[in-house]
């Protein structure tokens, strides 16, 4: 089996997993898979392993149920590529206590739902305990084995996926992860500076404070007939240097080559608008944008902030819809 290694599902369908019956076929498969683009991820490594035949296949995972706020063991007799579309009744979810972990009672329940016994049952129990250990020790959001297969030789994990919680990486230096390797350069640069950044494609870049507000501004941009191209969530913005850093990051053409405009949207709740305005003026004096810019400011010291920006020759809008309309005209007239 020749398998392209990318941190995203759907590899089989994308043609990044192939079976080879001879060394020549394996080489051929390797050549076509290496460097392949799977949903935006370039295949940089390829795993070549023995083909394993099997009698039974299972899906086995530890994940988090956000409504319950608990770890859940997810188990099914129907493993394989299509587990996302498997009928809910064929999937058993067992919520666990975050302190106690996987108890023998939980394991009995899992085995009962699968209707297996003997060697198969004890194997699945053992593997379930192990995925709990990995899940809890390494602060995982997901540890998935799909499929777990049973054959004459015992059980084999044919494929696995692990998602480590970003917020827990600080306590896992032993994992030695290059967390930026698979990120867009813009997203990596944002992360390094303590911002949250996402690239969406060609369109308007949004700089705002707060994830909910940022999403909301992107929605309004969409309604105005424009596309959202990227966003940067400043988080706390009471430091003008952070505003400068955010705006110069968005304005860096090597990071975001396809932006059509810039929308800066700040609600000064704790953050003061005059501090934000000083940051914007400083950033724009350093970095000349060749795309239209609109600014919308609301909140504490709004009028002082507005004055600072207007003195620098910038137009300030006080509502999001007004800013969107202005942006539409400005971007539209260019294309």
């Amino acid at each position, binding site marked *: 089996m020749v398998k392209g290694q990318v941190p995203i599902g759907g590899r089989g369908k994308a043609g990044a997993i192939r079976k080879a019956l001879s060394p020549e076929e394996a080489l051929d498969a390797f050549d076509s898979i290496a460097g392949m683009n799977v*949903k935006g991820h370039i295949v940089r490594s390829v795993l070549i392993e023995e083909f394993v035949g099997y009698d039974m296949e299972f899906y086995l*995972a530890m*994940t*988090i*149920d*956000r*409504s319950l*706020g*608990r*770890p*859940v063991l*997810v188990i099914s007799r129907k493993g394989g590529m299509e*587990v*996302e579309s498997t009928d809910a009744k064929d*999937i058993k*979810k067992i919520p666990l*206590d*975050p*302190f106690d972990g996987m108890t023998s009672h939980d394991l009995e329940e899992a085995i009962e739902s699968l209707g297996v016994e003997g060697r198969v049952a004890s194997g699945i129990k053992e593997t379930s305990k192990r995925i709990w250990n990995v899940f*809890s020790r390494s*602060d995982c*959001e*997901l540890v*998935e084995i799909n499929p777990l297969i049973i054959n004459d030789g015992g059980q084999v994990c044919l494929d696995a996926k692990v*998602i480590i*919680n970003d*917020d*827990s990486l*600080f*306590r896992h230096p032993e994992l030695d992860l290059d967390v930026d390797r698979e990120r867009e350069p813009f997203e990596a640069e944002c992360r390094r500076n303590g911002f949250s950044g*996402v690239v*969406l494609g060609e369109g308007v870049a949004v700089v*705002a*404070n*707060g*994830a*909910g*507000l940022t*999403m*909301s501004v*992107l*929605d*309004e*941009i*969409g*309604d105005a007939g424009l596309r*959202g191209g990227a966003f940067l969530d400043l*988080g706390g913005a009471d430091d003008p240097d952070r505003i400068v850093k955010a705006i110069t990051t968005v304005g860096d053409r090597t990071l975001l080559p396809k932006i059509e405009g810039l929308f800066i949207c700040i*609600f*000064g*709740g*704790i953050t003061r608008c005059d501090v934000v305005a000083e940051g914007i003026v400083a950033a724009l004096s350093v970095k000349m944008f060749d795309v239209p810019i609109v600014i919308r400011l*609301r*909140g*504490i010291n709004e009028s002082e902030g507005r004055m600072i920006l207007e003195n620098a020759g910038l137009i300030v809008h006080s*509502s*999001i*819809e007004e800013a969107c309309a202005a942006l539409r005209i400005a971007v539209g007239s260019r294309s």
Partner: protein
Amino acid sequence: MIDIWKDAKVIVQGITGHQGGRHALEMRSFGTNVVGGVTPGKGGQLMSGIPVFETVREVVRKFHANSSAIFVPAEHCLEAAMESMEAGIELLVVVTEHVPIHDAMKMRGRADTLGITLIGPNSPGLAIPTGLKIGIMPNHIFKKGNVAVLSRSGTLTYEIVNGLTSAGIGQSLVVGIGGDQVVGSSMASIANGMLRKERPDCIVLIGEIGGLEEQLATETIKGWYDGPIVAYIAGRTAPPGKRMGHAGAIIGDSSESYPKKVSSLSDLGVHVCDHLYDVPVFVKKASY
């Protein structure tokens, strides 16, 4: 649960930090009874007139503190939350961002076992405009009134509350449950615990794509409330697969998209606003 409208005696864990100290004073000027702060290793000092203690237990013993706002760094947050729950704090607001998700599950597990109201992590807190605020919401956006606002975000909540206030619509309670995947109280449990007796004129839900929070809250609220519910859901144009706050494994994905969320809320009789600036308009129409 304590009657927070009357009896909240609040401590600030991490009061000697920049955010903790600043917001302790902001809370106090809003009218909150901030009885003390806790920072291990810095007990005995005064922070702008607020006494600082070594442990939560001391300040609970001395001033009968029953509520806490936690501002300690993410890596110590679980420890701080456990300490205050074990010391008898009944209402806990965790403001800290980037708390490890397994720690959040443990906080929630312990709070559920002990019957403690946990709000957050990553929460802007709660405000009752008659004079209680626990958290970081800006003081100037509120107005006394009888509309309740339950939200999953921070600045978006401030925008909408500010919009309500500008339109002359006051609020009785505003709560941000926190934007993380796993938080303590859900919108549903806040509604059942804090709104049931108060019977607001209108309930506003500020949600976003991902999770089932808003649907579950509406179902439970409808059990005892026949007044208007107005919702706004952010992320209508967010492309699937991009992580805009959701790490969806294989659990319950399809019902978390924008169209599914809106249609299930509409089916339950909720008015879902397309734009955030429509919220005050519909609240006014629905409740006056």
